[in-house]
C-alpha cells in the first residue's frame, strides 16, 4: 500500500502529502443554513391532473416529469410502478390509471 502512495506522489504533483501550509490558507469551516426553493408547482389540467398532483409531488417537483421526452405508454406504466414498488410511493392502485393517462397525454410517444 505504501508503495502505491509513493508512486502517486512522484508521478503527479497534484496529490500532495501532508500540507501544513495549506492549513493556514484554508478558511475556517463554518456552520451553514440555507433555504431551498419549495418546488411545489402543480401539474396543469384541472380534474384530469388531480391524481398526479395528489400522489407524485411529495417526493419530487413537477418539472422532473415535464422535462422528460415523449415516452411510450409501457414506459410510463413501468415508471409509475417503479415509484410504488421500488421507491415506496404511497399511491393507491385506483389512482394509477389516471396518473398513467395523464403522463401519456402529456408526454406520450407511439
Amino acid at each position, binding site marked *: *500500500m505504501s508503495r*502505491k*502512495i509513493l508512486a*502517486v506522489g512522484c508521478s*503527479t*504533483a*497534484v*496529490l*500532495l*502529502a*501532508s*500540507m*501544513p501550509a*495549506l*492549513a493556514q*490558507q*484554508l*478558511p475556517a*469551516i*463554518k*456552520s*451553514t*443554513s*440555507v*433555504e*431551498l*426553493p*419549495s*418546488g*411545489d*408547482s*402543480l*401539474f*396543469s*389540467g384541472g380534474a384530469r391532473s388531480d391524481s398526479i*398532483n*395528489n*400522489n407524485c*409531488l*411529495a*417526493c*419530487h*417537483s*413537477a*418539472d*422532473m416529469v*415535464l*422535462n*422528460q*421526452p*415523449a*415516452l411510450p405508454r409501457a*414506459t410510463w406504466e413501468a*415508471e409509475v410502478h417503479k415509484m410504488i414498488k*421500488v*421507491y*415506496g*410511493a*404511497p399511491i393507491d392502485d385506483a389512482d394509477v390509471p389516471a396518473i398513467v393517462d395523464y403522463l401519456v397525454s402529456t408526454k406520450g*410517444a407511439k
Partner: protein
Amino acid sequence: MTPYKLEPSGESTAASNASHSPARAALVRARSRRSVLQQLGLAGVSLLAAPALAPALAGELVTLPLASDPRERPVTRDFPQKGSMILQRTRPPLLETPMEVFDRSVFTPNDQFYVRWHWAAIPNSVDVNSFRLSVRGHVNVPLKLSIDDLLKMPRVELAAVNQCSGNSRGFFLPRVAGAQWAHGAMGNARWTGVRLKDVLDRAGVKAGAVQVRFDGLDEPVVPEAPDFKKSIDIDHARDGEVMIAFAMNGEQLPLLNGFPLRLIVPGWYSTYWVKMLSDIEVLDKPDDNFWMAVAYTIPDTLHANITPGQTGVKMVPINRMVPRSFFTNIAEDSSFPADTQFSVRGIALGGDRGVAKVELSSDDGKSWQPAMLGKDYGKYSFRQWETNLTLTKGNHALMVRCTNLAGEDQPLAPNWNNSGFMRNVIETLRVVAV
C-alpha cells in the same frame, strides 16, 4: 459565441405556482425525522422550510441541444450558494452547469458546480460543532469524528472530475427516462481533505473486511424507500487516493455539493462521491443494498452498450470513468468565415487515467489533427485543449476525441443502455463556413 442560446421568457417550466399543494399531507411524514436530525446538529429539513422562495419565473430560458423536445430549461439563480444554473428539477435539486462555464476555467467554480440529489429530505442546516462522522462496522474501535478532528489529520489535495453516471443522458436515442442532462452534469475541482485510508486505519479495519459503505445525511421522504448508500471494495477504500473532502477549490463545500464532508472517489462516477457524508460502515460481506445491486448498474459489455430491447444481460455496478472531450467555445450550427483561421478549444478528461492526447477532425473522422494540451493538473483533472482550424466554404462536422494514458479512446458510435449511463461517444458539432 456562447454554446447555448439564451432567450428571454416569461414562462415557468412547471405548469402553475399554487402556494399550497395537496401533496403537503404526505410531506408530514418527514416531520418525525426532524428530532433525529436536530440531535445531529441539524435545524431542519429543506422540505419543511416554511417560506417558498420565488420559483424560476420571468427568467431566461436556455435551449439545450438534446435529442428531442423539450429542450428549453429555465436558468435559475434561486438556489443557495449557487449562481446561474440550468434548472432540471427543483426538488430534489438537479442543477446543470452551463457549458460556457467550462470555457472559462479548467476548474469549475463552486457556485456553478452541478448539483444532483436523489431524495428531497436534505438537511438545510448543518452545525459544524455538533456534526460527527461515524466510522463503524467491522472495525476495532468505532469512531465519532468531528470536523476539528479531521482538520488535525494529515491533509491531502487532489484535482478531480466529478461526473454524474447519467451525464449527457439527454442525447440517448432511443430516449430513456431520467434527468435529461446535456453535458453539464460534471465539474472539476481541487478537493482538500484527508485520506479515507487514514480514517480507516484510525478505527482499525478487522481481518475479513470486504467493502466500505457510505451514507449521507439526506433521507427519503417516504420512510419505506431505500436510503441512498454506496459502497466500494476495501482495497479501493484503502488505496490512499479515495478521500474525505472538507474543501472544494479552497473553500468549504456549498451545502448542495455535500457540506460539510464529501467522499471523493477519483476517476469513478459521482454516484460514489457521497454528499453530506456522515456514516462509514466497514462490511464483512458485499453490499447488496438497492443502490449497489439494482440502481446504478450497467451492462457488463464494452462501453456498457446493448441493443435497445436486449435482455438477459449481466449487470454490474457502474465504476470507473472513461475518456471524454468537449468543445467549449463553439456550438452546434455555429458559422465561421471560410478560409479563415479560427481558434477552437475545450476540455477533456481521461477517465481513471490521465489525458494522453486530444485530436480534432473536420472531415467526419477520416483524418485527425492533434490539439495542444493545457497545463496538467493531474490524471483525474480536466485538461484544456486548443487548436486552430481553417474551413473551406460549406458544411462541416467537427469532432473531438480524447485518448487516455492507457491508450483508451472514445468510440465513433454512441453507446446505449436502459439507464442512459456512461456516454462517451466522440462528440460532433455541425458547423458551416461561409
